[in-house]
């Protein structure tokens, strides 16, 4: 009956406005009487601000006001939303992050002054007229430099530049496993620093209504309610009922638009001071030096194996770059979002991980698509491949030997998480078949005949998303709940508006969520509207990140619709003079079981708003329900990714030939959208593995600071991406869904690097750090000396 419900590849509703240029992104919006802001930013990685001379700039045409750090002395700092405690129980070092730099600048891009002028160009011109006297201080950019003895300090209150020194797992059990091991495999890995580069640069408009005293912030955010909470409560002391945050169409996020940024607070505060709207749009250069970066971990991993190749224990030591200040979720990324996943899909009985978080004079680092899980997956899937080779085992066999079997679910890992469901053998076998793994050797020979080196790489992974059970997250350091909210408003004529706290910035929520409503209430798509991204309309919400929109936000909708149906049954029972227990709701109709008596959904809706014949004594009029859904556990998508590459030994160039993914993401609502999510994630993973790298020089200057220097994946860098799914349902949410937003970026990087290393197997190459650029590979091939390696 429901043709556009769960499981249908419904074409996207949002496409019509995006394809015809009628999207409504923040920079497309203008408020009456608005002024424009330009931020003057530090071009120095570290320095003492002696003087900011704005006198000449103030005289420039069109200048309305110029603000500096001193103006923000009385407001709060930009807060961090997650607190980690060190091994010794002490809380992480949490230095103040001023809205505009106060006293010191700590990274290139740190804002020093905000110029407000009548036009964008006038604001830019005036910013250039500000005279800065900044005394250069020695800086640290990389992890190793920051941790070196006597290194310059980013913050005086963080000795040794250490933010926290954390650990998890059973160290004694791991040591016991190592003592009994047949072999210990050790691997040093770098997880390369990335720039998220959503195609829409960040933008914001601060607005203040003198009549109501209400502030409005229009911003490029994945979670407007979170911004309202962080900025209102912690920075500007504006109560929620006087602060509205609107995130309209947002042009991609990938994590970088989760966080509360200083510019949002500066614009909102200044709009109140100047009593007029102020608009700011980042250019791409600003995005490179202010959007939170991703990854940037250095790890050492040691895996103990018995003589048959069973994993006995895993020990990991990670250093994680936090940048100059703690961004919103930064401390959670290398810890509870990464180290807890080190079991991967394997039944390794003992795991111990240490994570040292480090301040540097670089842009803050925080969650980027996958957030911690790509780092864990890269580490585990690389060391498994190295172990297979050093144990002379087949890389398929070693994985299968160590998989958590499907009978073992729910499976308690030794490192906090309990996986609810999965079938890793099914996704693995499905992917091996889809990738024609069996036929690879013939393809390798064909490449060799052309003088090319062909390699195949496997990654079998699991990740934890659907973030998150509030009590668990709270116990782990989250300073907020992580439930989701849905309000379902059935209108008198039977059309439906869904207000969701999730936010769509490419995911197609307006379509997928409408499919949920269509499925459950039997309402046609053109009678359903999905409203998101406005704290003035949506009761509450925690937003979209951690692949949570469907499994948490969608579950809230299901719960709210359950309430709608329950109330509708009472109304129907009254109208049809039947017992409420005899009413069933199916295909958009309330009927009395065993009879032909029925009322349509629309008739019940109208009755709820025109209650002439209505059980008014026991039931309120109206048909609108709200549900808060707090998940009982994380969700655990998993699967297998297989990459096939060909290397030209003369140039070191890697060509991506094939990429095959078979993922278990639980219940699929819209297969077309799911495929697109996985393909996009895989492309970002290929970008990390082969192309992308945010490189700082020793002094703290970002060398790959523009799209001319930072290698974004282009159409001819990415192959066709074959996507398949195998489904085991999530056991603890009403939809059985697990999440799909990040799996592509989590599973793919080790598949690509394993393929590159496989292609280079005759050149004594054991490991290649990302990105596997032609220069790096060419140098490895050139450095290879057959006699020395033929041991």
């Amino acid at each position, binding site marked *: 009956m429901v043709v556009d419900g769960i499981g249908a590849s419904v074409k996207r509703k949002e496409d019509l406005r995006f394809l015809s240029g009628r999207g409504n992104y923040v920079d497309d919006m203008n408020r009456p009487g608005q002024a424009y802001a330009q931020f003057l930013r530090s071009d120095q990685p570290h320095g003492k601000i002696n003087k900011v001379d704005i006198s000449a700039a103030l005289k420039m045409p069109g200048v309305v006001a110029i603000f500096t750090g001193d103006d923000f002395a009385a407001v709060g700092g930009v807060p961090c939303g997650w607190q980690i405690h060190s091994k010794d129980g002490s809380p992480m070092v949490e230095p103040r992050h001023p809205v505009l730099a106060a006293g010191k600048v700590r990274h290139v891009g740190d804002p020093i002054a905000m110029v407000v002028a009548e036009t964008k160009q006038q604001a830019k011109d005036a910013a250039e007229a500000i005279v800065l006297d900044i005394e250069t201080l020695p800086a640290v950019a990389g992890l190793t430099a920051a941790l070196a003895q006597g290194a310059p300090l980013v913050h005086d209150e963080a000795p040794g530049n250490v933010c926290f020194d954390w650990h998890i797992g059973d160290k004694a059990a791991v040591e016991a496993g190592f003592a009994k091991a047949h072999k210990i495999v050790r691997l040093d890995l770098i997880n390369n620093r990335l720039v998220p580069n959503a195609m829409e640069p960040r933008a914001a408009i601060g607005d203040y209504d003198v009549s109501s005293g209400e502030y409005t912030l229009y911003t490029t955010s994945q979670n407007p309610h979170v911004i309202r909470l962080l900025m209102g409560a912690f920075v500007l002391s504006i109560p929620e009922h006087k602060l509205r945050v609107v995130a309209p169409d947002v042009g991609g996020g990938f994590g970088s638009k989760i966080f509360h940024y200083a510019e949002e607070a500066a614009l909102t505060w200044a709009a109140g001071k100047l009593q007029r709207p102020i608009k700011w749009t980042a250019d791409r250069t600003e995005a490179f030096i202010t959007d939170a970066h991703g990854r940037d971990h250095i790890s050492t991993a040691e895996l103990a194996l018995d003589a048959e190749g069973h994993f006995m224990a895993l020990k990991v030591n990670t250093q994680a770059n936090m940048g100059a200040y703690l961004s919103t979720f930064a401390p959670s990324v290398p810890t509870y979002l990464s180290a807890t996943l080190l079991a991967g899909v394997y039944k390794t009985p003992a795991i111990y991980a240490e994570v040292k978080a480090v301040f540097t004079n670089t842009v803050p680092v925080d969650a980027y698509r996958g957030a911690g899980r790509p780092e864990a997956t890269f580490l585990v899937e690389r060391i498994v491949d190295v172990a297979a080779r050093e144990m002379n085992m087949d890389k398929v066999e070693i994985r299968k030997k160590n998989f958590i079997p499907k009978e073992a679910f729910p499976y308690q890992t030794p490192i906090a998480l309990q996986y609810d469901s999965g079938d890793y053998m099914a996704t693995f076998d499905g992917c091996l078949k889809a990738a024609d793994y069996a036929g690879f050797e013939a393809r390798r020979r064909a490449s060799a005949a052309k003088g090319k080196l062909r390699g195949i790489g496997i990654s079998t992974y699991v990740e934890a998303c659907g973030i998150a059970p509030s009590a668990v997250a709270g116990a782990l350091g989250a300073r907020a709940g992580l439930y989701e909210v849905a309000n379902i408003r059935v209108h008198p004529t039977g059309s439906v508006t869904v207000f969701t706290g999730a936010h769509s910035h*490419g995911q197609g929520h307006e379509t997928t969520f409408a499919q949920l409503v269509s499925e459950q209430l039997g309402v046609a798509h053109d009678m359903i509207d999905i409203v998101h991204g406005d704290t003035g309309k949506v009761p509450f919400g925690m937003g979209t990140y951690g692949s949570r929109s469907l499994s948490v936000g969608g579950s809230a909708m299901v719960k709210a619709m359950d309430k709608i149906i329950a109330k509708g049954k009472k109304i129907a029972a009254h109208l049809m003079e039947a017992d409420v227990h005899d009413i069933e709701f199916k295909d958009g109709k309330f009927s009395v079981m065993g009879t032909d008596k029925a009322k349509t959904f629309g008739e019940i809706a109208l009755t709820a708003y025109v209650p002439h014949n209505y059980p008014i004594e026991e039931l309120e009029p109206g048909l609108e329900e709200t549900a808060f859904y707090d998940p009982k556990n994380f969700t655990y998508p998993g699967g297998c990714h297989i990459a096939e590459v060909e290397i030209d030994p003369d140039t070191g160039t890697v060509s991506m030939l094939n990429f095959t993914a078979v993922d278990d993401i639980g219940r699929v609502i819209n297969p077309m959208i799911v495929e697109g999510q996985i393909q996009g994630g895989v492309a970002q993973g290929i970008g990390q593995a082969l192309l992308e790298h945010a490189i700082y020089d020793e002094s703290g200057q970002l060398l790959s600071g523009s799209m001319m220097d930072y290698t974004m994946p282009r*159409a001819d860098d990415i192959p066709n991406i074959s996507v398949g799914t195998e489904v085991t349902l999530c056991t603890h949410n009403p939809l059985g869904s697990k999440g799909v937003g990040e799996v592509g970026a989590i599973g793919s990087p080790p598949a690509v690097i394993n393929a590159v290393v496989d292609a280079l197997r005759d050149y004594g190459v054991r490991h290649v750090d990302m990105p596997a650029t032609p220069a790096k590979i060419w140098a490895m091939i050139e450095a290879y000396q057959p006699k020395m390696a033929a041991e």
Partner: protein
Amino acid sequence: MPQISLTVNGKPASATVEARTLLVELLRDKLHLTGTHVGCDTSQCGACTVQVDGMSVKSCSMLAVQADGANVLTIEGLVNADGSLHPMQAMFREHHALQCGYCTPGMVMSAIDLVETHPEGLSEAQIRHGLEGNLCRCTGYHNIVKAIAAAWPLMHDKALPVAAE
């Protein structure tokens, strides 16, 4: 300040602009055609692609005064008078070739130019090479390539000579 007159999406337009004003700034800020987007500052991303006198142009790399007297077509001008979509727009929707929608207008304008300038047919490799000037962070390009391959026969009113799956 210079006064310029041009035709945009078939309609006459005029504006007073600073000499340094870019064509994309004219379109977005003065003419309120916000479908054309700005995604970078180094003419790498192609989000601002429009057609000027029938040629595909990154409107961030051209001054507004250089468009004086020109005929400019933007994403807003592609939709037919009856509200129906251009075949390229329709195929982007059919093949889920867009997610966040931000690169989409520039991608569609570039794709139309690519198809129009290749009446002899387009291989998958040619499509991928032809998209080098346009960045998309969401889709991984897979479905954009499919959409363009599917639009080719519709725009040239014939069957596609090269299969591009």
